[in-house]
């Protein structure tokens, strides 16, 4: 399979070396307190991997996720994304990378209010400089693939949580990025919907070779990933293949595909 081959190529998608992140806080006495969140993180993720990052709150997993997503910059260390040193890029170059190379899926869906599902999905294309008509056409195609075609003209508040998250996934996919970052994507969803969303990710990873990095604190959600990284107090304490993955997939292998190509 394409994803398996990709996993063995020599060029990693993400390569992080000695990455540190600290925040300067103003203490009550007016002195600056430095709060280090990440300590010398080393991490390599190859194309086609499905990685779950786990940890308790305060472990630094969200900070790592923000840096991976080019939403935040590291204090020190290097971050190579698809062969580019991201740490050295300007704000606008980072915006371009977020637009072209990364798809975001958030816990709170983060759709733009009072905008139809269709326009929400099309917006990244508009920022990429593609015309509105063509953007909408491609957005509709993606909504069709995630089974939301009939909801295209609905606004987010008219959609269920699961539908909103699928709109968000469609939006993440529209520029065909090699990487999807999902930050607690099932945090606001019930068990059944969570399962559907995770199977969708699983399928994207398997069929299209999209690299997925998932942040969660739930073991049963992390179980869908093939690799598990556990953070504690800003250090990686576990980085292993996920045996549980196979079991979950076997349970899910009932043949009903959530993505119809």
């Amino acid at each position, binding site marked *: 399979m394409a994803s398996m081959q990709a996993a063995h190529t020599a060029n990693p998608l993400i390569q992080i070396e000695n990455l540190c992140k600290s925040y300067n806080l103003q203490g009550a006495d007016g002195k600056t307190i430095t709060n280090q969140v990440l300590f010398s993180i080393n991490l390599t993720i190859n194309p086609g991997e499905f990685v779950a990052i786990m940890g308790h709150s305060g472990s630094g997993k969200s900070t790592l996720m923000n840096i991976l997503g080019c939403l935040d910059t590291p204090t020190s260390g290097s971050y190579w994304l698809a062969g580019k040193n991201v740490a050295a890029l300007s704000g606008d170059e980072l*915006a371009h990378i977020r637009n072209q190379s990364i798809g975001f899926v958030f816990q709170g869906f*983060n*759709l733009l209010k009072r905008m139809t599902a269709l326009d929400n999905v099309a917006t990244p294309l508009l920022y990429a400089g593609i015309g509105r008509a063509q953007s909408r056409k491609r957005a509709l195609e993606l909504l069709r693939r995630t089974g939301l075609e009939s909801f295209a003209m609905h606004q987010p508040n008219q959609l269920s949580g699961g539908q909103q998250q699928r709109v968000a996934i469609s939006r993440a996919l529209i520029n065909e990025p090699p990487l999807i970052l999902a930050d607690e994507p099932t945090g606001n969803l019930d068990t059944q919907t969570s399962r559907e969303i995770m199977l969708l990710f699983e399928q994207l990873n398997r069929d299209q070779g999209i690299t997925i990095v998932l942040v969660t604190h739930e073991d049963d959600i992390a179980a869908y990933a093939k690799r598990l990284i556990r953070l504690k107090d800003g250090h990686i304490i576990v980085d292993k293949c996920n045996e549980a993955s196979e079991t979950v997939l076997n349970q899910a292998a009932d043949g009903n595909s959530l993505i119809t190509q």
Partner: protein
Amino acid sequence: MNLFTIIGEALRALRQNRLRTGLTMLGMIIGVAAVVLMLSIGQGARTKINETIAAMGSNLFLVVPGATSSGGFSFGSGSVRTLTINDAYAIAELSSVSATAPVTTGTVQLNYAAKNWSTIITGTTPNYFTVGNWKMDSGAAFTESDLRSAARVVVLGSVTAKNLFGDEEPIGKTIRITNRPFVVVGVLMAKGQSLTGRDQDDTVLIPITTSERQITGNQFPGSIRYMLVQGTSASDMDIAEIEITQLLRQRHRIAKGKENDFTVRNLTAIADVATDTAKVMSIVLGAIASVSLLVGGIGIMNIMLVSVTERTREIGIRMAIGANQRAILTQFLLEAMMICIMGGVIGLIVGIGSAWVVSRVADMLIVITIGMVGLASLFSSAVGIFFGFYPAKKAASLKPVDALRYE
């Protein structure tokens, strides 16, 4: 993201909060309307003054007799009758002077049929009509021969003619001035108010000789109330003034070092002052109105800052899906500019409309020029850019991670 798309996004955002957009726009509407109204009133006043000045005649001097004083009391200019008709004729001979018109005045009662009317009578020479730039509505001015024979002929001002005759044709009719019959030979074209606000059309004119001998009488024969002097050219006005002064001093035998017993006033200079005053007035009116535009602009800035704070999360989402700083900046700047431009257009319409109402209700001359409309539009867009830039810059310089985390 192309401009067309961003305009669409901006319109969508403005529609989402109609009441707020409307109220913010109201500040702009009032500001622009005020500027347009004030400028048009100011321009109207200037046009009116220019018309009055043009009607007054060009290169004019007013020569009035001097002041007299007795025991420390000054009786004001004209309190002695030092100027005479012959002074006027002598001045007319000067090379820098084209014509003079001596004037005596008085108040008289006029009668025609059952109607009577009280007005100011002007006794003068036929030159008065050319020097004072008077045009005839009907009939003709009295002539030099009327002057010599002290004929009982009269030229009516348009207001006087209307009051005495109504719709009837006055030419050839006989009216009574202090009970003496006079034949109406002409009616003047209306001029309107003078710079001092006097109605110049409520008057009657007769030959100065007739006036002196038969109407106002004169305790000092040959003396006049004032004279109008017309210089030959605008550039020689200073020379003319010196020549008039020298000639009068010589004729009045005023010793060196003594003060003049007359005053020469350059009416063109007075007109210039009036024009300048009107200009200053329109600038002041415009400036006051601009303050309301400024306040409207501050309102826009205020609302845009609130909007940026409220929509921090939206900004974060947009940045996460690939909006760069320029896209965010343009989006918010365009929102501010659209409030201003729409407000400006509505304000322009409201301003022109209220100028029209003012011109009708207050019977004022209101002038709206293309330049004014351009200025108001330019000003409102400039306000949009100026007051919209800071909030937009603030939105664009948010850090994506902070904006996304904002609750």
